[in-house]
Structures are given as structure tokens and as C-alpha cells.
């Protein structure tokens, strides 16, 4: 096998106390009754470790919504994996945090929606900001790697300088500033979330200055919105090249959003060995090599760098998962991006659509 999976993203539940307007979960969420059991996940983690996976990202929904989280962390460490918890913090207290660290948790990524309380709570659709501040303090008091994640968009990008100063105060070693990616709930709210070109250009300058100022103190990773890029992002570093995602019900996917692509039969970790799914399943091989590529990708020098961009975005915006990512300025469907950007750059804001928690 040419490709070794390096990271497993485990969406252990879609349940979440937050209702963020840019949630990356699919519009059709998995129900609690369909979630994998503790034993199912333990088996998955063992198989992943044997296949060469290094990193296990426990995410959701809110992973703390599962009462067996400590057990899952322990099982991941037993399987020789590096344990990363991606969380809103809601559901954490001192005792649970100590238990998680004791079970082998390596790293916590805590999300904040803004540096100011009122907009943070508005974007999250819930009053969670004040609690998150207490959680950050709890994390900082312990010896564990700590990243703050802040999702940025049209409504908060002008506060980026203040948001970076805020992240500095949390005591995190690393700050991830992620522009919203337009899938799931975020795509539904796209017209309210996409920043203007002017905002984006200013934000790049802000991050560059902050990186210089904070060198050696706070590392900053900055994810740009691909709508403004000339070429598409190398989505997941290639379909089925390095990463896989398992949803709460056990579907094994090449990425967060792949369930939107019609005609693919996603295998279940309940029914098939993970190695078969990675190496031999039709889904993981569907866009793995270059044989699916249309022009202009097929003869493009960049195809080994960006792999034609994102298959899910091609389907969502161009109606065909085997099309060039419309974000690419060379794509025949690029006009859909230009039209969206024209609307965003010349128009006022709209109302949010909040996600509802699955039963």
C-alpha cells in the first residue's frame, strides 16, 4: 500500500451543547442511539495503531458529551496513539480534566468563538463564553499542551488583533486561527460568514505582525478561506492519502464532509476491518489516484500538489464530485465562486440558521 494513514479523526458523537453557525458537522447528524459503543471505538483505535496511525483526534459534536471519554483516551494511548481532544470545554471540570490527563491525554484544543462575550455567545447560539474562560484557566494550571482555536469570519475578522491578544492571555502555547470552511452548517450560513476581500487582506497583515511579536511565545497557525485563493487547497492532503474520519455511527470517511457525495457506499467500522476499508474499499480508492481527474487538472503541473482540490466542494458547488474544485481560477465552474464573492463584497448581512442538536 502506497499510502499510510497518519491521523484518525474520531467524531465520537454529534451531540453538542453549542449550536455554532459554522458547525462543520453534516446537516444530517447521527443520532445518539446509533453511536458506536465504547468497545467498538476501542477496537477501532487498536486497528488504527497497528496500521501506523500516529494521531487520534477526538472530536464531535462535543466529545465531552460521552461519559466514556476517559476510557476512550486510555484506549487510544494503549494503542500507541497521540491523543488530541478537540473541545468547546463545556462538560469539563477539575476532576474530569485530571482524569483525562491521567488517562494519557496529550493535547487539548479549546475553541473560542470570539474575544468578546456577546458576539461569542451569539455565534455559538448559547451562553458558553464565560464558562470557557474558566476552563482555559483550569487547563493552563496543568502540565498539558494547550491550543486555542478561534474560528474567524465576516462578523469578527475586524477584531482579529484583539482576538490574538485574548488568546495570549489564555496561556495557550499555540493559536489556530481558522477561517470558516464552507461545508455543512457553514455553507448554509455562507452569505453571512464569508469575509470581504478588504477584511481578508487586513487580517493577513495582522497575523504577520503578531507572529513577529510573539515569536517563541505563541505559535500561530492561520487557515485562509479558499474562496479567495488562486488555486484550491490540497484537501486532506489528498483523498485517502493520510487521514480518515469515523463518524459517530461508525461510517469511515476520507474527510468530514464526504457523506454529501451521492453514489458512494461508505463502509462501516462495525462491519469491516479498518485496514480493508483504507486499502481496498471503493470509497477510499475513488479519488485516490489521478485517473478520475478531468481537464484542466489532468495536464496541470499542480495536480501532485493540490490533487484537484476538494471533492466535496466540487459536488456542493458544481454538482459533480469529479469536477475540478470551483475555487481554482482555472476551473470551468469558477464563476460560482466569483458570483458568491461579488454578493459578499457588495451586500449587508443576513440572519443565522442555528443547528439543532440530534436526538
Amino acid at each position, binding site marked *: 500500500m502506497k499510502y499510510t494513514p*497518519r491521523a484518525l479523526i474520531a467524531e465520537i458523537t454529534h451531540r453538542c451543547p453549542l449550536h455554532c453557525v459554522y458547525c462543520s458537522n453534516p446537516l444530517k447528524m447521527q443520532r445518539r442511539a446509533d453511536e458506536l459503543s465504547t468497545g467498538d471505538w476501542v477496537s477501532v483505535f487498536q486497528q488504527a*495503531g497497528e496500521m*501506523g496511525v*500516529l*494521531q487520534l483526534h477526538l472530536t464531535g459534536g462535543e466529545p465531552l458529551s460521552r461519559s466514556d471519554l476517559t476510557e476512550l483516551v486510555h484506549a487510544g494511548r494503549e494503542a*500507541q496513539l*497521540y491523543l*488530541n481532544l478537540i473541545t468547546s470545554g463545556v462538560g469539563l471540570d477539575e476532576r474530569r480534566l485530571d482524569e483525562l490527563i491521567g488517562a494519557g491525554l*496529550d*493535547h487539548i*484544543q479549546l475553541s473560542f468563538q470570539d474575544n468578546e462575550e456577546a458576539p461569542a455567545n451569539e455565534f455559538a447560539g448559547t451562553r458558553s463564553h464565560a464558562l470557557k474562560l474558566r476552563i482555559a484557566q483550569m487547563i493552563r494550571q496543568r*502540565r*498539558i*499542551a*494547550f*491550543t486555542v482555536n478561534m474560528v474567524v469570519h465576516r462578523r469578527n475578522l475586524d477584531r482579529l488583533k484583539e482576538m490574538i491578544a485574548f488568546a495570549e492571555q489564555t496561556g495557550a*502555547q*499555540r493559536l489556530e486561527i481558522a477561517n470558516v470552511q464552507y461545508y455543512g452548517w457553514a455553507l448554509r450560513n455562507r452569505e453571512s460568514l464569508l469575509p470581504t476581500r478588504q477584511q481578508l487582506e487586513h487580517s493577513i497583515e495582522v497575523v504577520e505582525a503578531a507572529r513577529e511579536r510573539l*515569536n*517563541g511565545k505563541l*505559535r500561530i*497557525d492561520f487557515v485562509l478561506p479558499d474562496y479567495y485563493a488562486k488555486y484550491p487547497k490540497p484537501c486532506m492532503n489528498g483523498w485517502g492519502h493520510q487521514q480518515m474520519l469515523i463518524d459517530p455511527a461508525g461510517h469511515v470517511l476520507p474527510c468530514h464532509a464526504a457523506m454529501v457525495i451521492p453514489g458512494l457506499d461508505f463502509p462501516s467500522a462495525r462491519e469491516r476491518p479498518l485496514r480493508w476499508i483504507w486499502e481496498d474499499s471503493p470509497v477510499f480508492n475513488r479519488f485516490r489516484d489521478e485517473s478520475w481527474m478531468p481537464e484542466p487538472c489532468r495536464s496541470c503541473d499542480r495536480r501532485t500538489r493540490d490533487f484537484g482540490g476538494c471533492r466535496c466542494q466540487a459536488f456542493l458547488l458544481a454538482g459533480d464530485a469529479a469536477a475540478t474544485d470551483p475555487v481554482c481560477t482555472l476551473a470551468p465552474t469558477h464563476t460560482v465562486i466569483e458570483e458568491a464573492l461579488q454578493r459578499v463584497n457588495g451586500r449587508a448581512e443576513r440572519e443565522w440558521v442555528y443547528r439543532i442538536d440530534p436526538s
Partner: protein
Amino acid sequence: MSGLERNRALRLAPGCRLNTTGGPEDLLLIPEGALRLKGPARTIVELCDGERTLAEIVVELQRHYPSAQPARIETEALALLARLRDRGVLEYA
């Protein structure tokens, strides 16, 4: 040149650890992924136990690699340690 304090000890920062699977790769696992350690880099990182000072680590490496030029070992080891500290992988104990 490296800006490091030679009479102090370094250790791996929280969330950074050497993988223990014993596979063919020497990997240093960190929050955003993994760093591949080439050549004697793993030995150098392993010596950062929070006890040995940097000066002691250099002496130890010079003993460990007797055929290499001592000055070169010192320069290269300190350069690696400075890079890893700037990345937040190593911290003063």
C-alpha cells in the same frame, strides 16, 4: 549564537514525546503532527531529560561520537536544540 543558556537543562514540553512503537522511523510527536528525527537527533533529544545541562549534553555527545570533530558536534547540537526550543518542542526545566 544559539541564544541558549548552557548551564540550564532542557526537557520536552508538554504534548511532545518520542514515539515508542519501535518502528523504522524516529518520530517526535507534537500537537500539530510529527517531526522526523534524522541522524543523531533522537539521541540529542533523549539527552534532554530535564537534569543534564546543555554543557553536559555537549560533552556527552562528544564522548558518544569520538570520531567527529568536537567543535562541530557542539555547533550542530546547539543549533538543533535552539530550533526545537523556538518551535516550543523543548522547554527549560
